[in-house]
């Protein structure tokens, strides 16, 4: 062979070889609002899963090892629903993703779900809690069977967790403060998603032997809630039941401390899940507690190693969208079990699967939603105590610490 032909021949062989290697990768499209903390955690969780799986040799499909490739798909869904659907279409038809994982804003995920189902691609939701996503599976199984909600539990189950923890907090108040009927003030940001939870709280709390002393609905971006908190103080509330996803959570925490409100805050407070909450409240966010997913407790045998590794790598704690890690590992489990990446063959296996993840023990119901159970998929509750985020519920989980009440 002449020298002139040698170079193109080598290049061609190299190209063919690299194509062959490339095509062996299993592609997971990680969908999320990458400019936001939710998307950052989607990606961080996926990166950890990819690195661990590839370090161990990849995923075995029918005896052949395949490397994991993750595709960062910025859905921009918080700002634009059409952007999200364009992004998932690109992931499927251009990037040729084998699996879709992620999503956050429910309205956008509903639209993305349609695109994924049109293309018959397995879509593991990690982030959106709207029940409708699972109801679709129940109502039209043949079309929507490719959808599974890997994390978190659906909105109705989140409410179950909230009331389960509320019962536990109320019991401690009864025991420690000798108050048979604890008083509860509901503080919910004035947005649509809180309405269902408000109604549920107003209906359920009296049945749980608690008195609802009032409902306060400040703006989601309010910078001062002293008027509301003063009224709550006068009403002698023992618990401030929070339903807050935005920066209001910081304002509430700080001003509860400033007013020395003799009450605990329990509920959803997304800001209080973040490591920077204590600093943001200028050290005044004591006794603020919230639902959370990860802490250094033995929710499962994998939780503590995962949280420690995450903190070591990213210098912060994971939030619930980091469950992309579990979504990838759970798919690895069923792929290796079935020996295929064919969605049609994987679906029955996922439906029957029990996967021990880092934040939950995953089994799916007929809506492809997580089966809710305390200690398995319910998540955890944490309370800020003197600058530390302390996990306290479910109490039977190893590593939980006592819940503290403010001094009266």
């Amino acid at each position, binding site marked *: 062979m002449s020298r002139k032909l040698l170079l193109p021949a080598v290049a061609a062989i190299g190209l063919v070889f690299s194509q062959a290697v490339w095509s062996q990768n299993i592609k997971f499209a990680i969908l999320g609002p990458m400019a936001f903390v939710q998307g950052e955690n989607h990606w961080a969780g996926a990166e950890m899963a990819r690195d661990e799986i590839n370090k161990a040799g990849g995923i075995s499909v029918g005896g052949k090892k395949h490397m994991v490739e993750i595709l960062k798909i910025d859905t921009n869904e918080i700002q634009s629903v059409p952007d999200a*659907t364009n992004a998932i279409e690109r992931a499927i038809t251009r990037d040729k993703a084998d699996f879709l994982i992620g999503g956050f804003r429910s309205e956008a995920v509903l639209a993305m779900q349609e695109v994924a189902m049109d293309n018959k691609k397995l879509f593991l939701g990690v982030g959106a809690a709207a029940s409708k996503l699972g109801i679709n599976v129940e109502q039209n199984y043949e079309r929507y069977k490719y959808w599974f909600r890997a994390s978190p539990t659906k909105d109705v189950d989140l409410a179950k967790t909230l009331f389960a923890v509320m019962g536990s907090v109320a019991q401690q108040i009864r025991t420690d403060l000798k108050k048979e009927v604890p008083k509860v003030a509901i503080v919910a940001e004035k947005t649509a998603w809180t309405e269902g939870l408000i109604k549920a709280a107003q209906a359920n709390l009296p049945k749980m032997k608690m008195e609802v002393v009032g409902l306060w609905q400040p703006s989601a971006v309010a910078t001062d809630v002293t008027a509301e908190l003063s009224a709550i103080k006068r009403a002698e509330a023992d618990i401030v039941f929070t339903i807050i996803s935005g920066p209001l959570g910081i304002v509430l925490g700080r001003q509860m401390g400033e007013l020395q409100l003799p009450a605990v805050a329990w509920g959803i407070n997304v800001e209080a899940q973040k490591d920077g909450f204590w600093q943001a409240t200028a050290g005044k966010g004591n006794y603020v507690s919230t639902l959370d997913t990860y802490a250094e407790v033995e929710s499962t045998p994998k939780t503590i190693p995962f949280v420690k590794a995450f903190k070591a790598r990213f210098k912060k704690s994971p939030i619930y969208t980091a469950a992309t890690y579990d979504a990838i590992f759970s798919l690895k489990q069923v792929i290796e079990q079935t020996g295929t990446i064919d969605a049609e063959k994987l679906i029955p296996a996922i439906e029957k699967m029990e996967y021990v993840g880092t934040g939950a023990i995953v089994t799916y119901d007929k809506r492809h939603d997580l089966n809710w159970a305390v200690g398995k998929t319910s998540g955890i509750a944490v309370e800020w105590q003197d600058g530390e985020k302390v996990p306290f519920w479910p109490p039977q989980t190893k590593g939980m610490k006592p819940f503290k009440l403010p001094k009266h």
Partner: protein
Amino acid sequence: MKGLLALPQWLWAQLRHEVLVLPSRSFVFFAALLLLVLPLFYDDPYVLRIITMTAIFAIFAASWDLLAGFTGQVNFGHALFFGVGAYTSALLSHHLGWIPWITVPLGAVLSMATGFLVGIPCLRLRGSYLSLATLAFPLILTGMLFAFPDFSGGELGISGLKRLVVSTVGNYYVAVLPMLILCFGIWKIGDSNTGLIFHAIREDEVACRASGINTTRYKLLAFALSGLFAGLSGALYAHFMRVAGPSALEVALSFQVVIWGIFGGIATIYGPVLAVFLLYPLTEILANFDMFKEIRLLIFAVIVLLVLLFMPQGLTPWIRDKIELVCPRCKNRNVFTRHQCRLCGAELR
């Protein structure tokens, strides 16, 4: 035989003497032709999806230009009409099970009625007061939708809607054909006597009234027509996305259409349409490059700012002034290479 040949001959004459004589018209003609034949040789679902969305938003942008550009009723809440079209079609489909071919036109009609109703309180307002008042309408509708979540789907909206047609190519034509027809229709309205009155209202409403024109009637007509076209685009959007949610009424969408309008050049119709065809795919194109993914919105903002800084009248008037010359005598346009007007023979420079 002679009769059969007459139509193609007439069409060719029109094309040669009315379209191909001007670069701007030639560009629009060939762009429209390209859009019509594109799926025949390029059927990438992702690209077709982007163009479908672009076509839907192009109708929306043209409808804004008819109201704000031509009539001077600068609407900062144009998403209201888009949302009314989307929700009407979605709710009729969802609750009554009607097919989208019926609900989409009904969505447009209800949006037209909304335009008429919204126009009434806006008659008393002018300038920035009008703009601020219109900003409130989509917020009011959003509040109403959230107040009845069982009916409207609340925060999640109505999902699982049926598409007008199943295939990707079919959906492409369902958006592109109405876009071409409606944008041409809106442009013809702007070019008609009615359009002239819209122009006059924008320039000097008092003088217009003094000339015996019932400006109230024409302003309401502009609101209603704008609502009709925006509503149709909203209804098409809902059935293409298969979701009609609160994002269809977002303030961001109302401002997006203002950006498209000003970027392309107001009171032109083709300007905002071209702006959508440039700006909407731009962020998607940038998303395909790793180095631009994170900063694509920043790049988008910089491009818009630069265009507005150096082309204050918008992109299309700037380009048109470069490639075409206006005859000083008959005011008709000519390609910039000509020295004499194609119609009256006057010296062009």
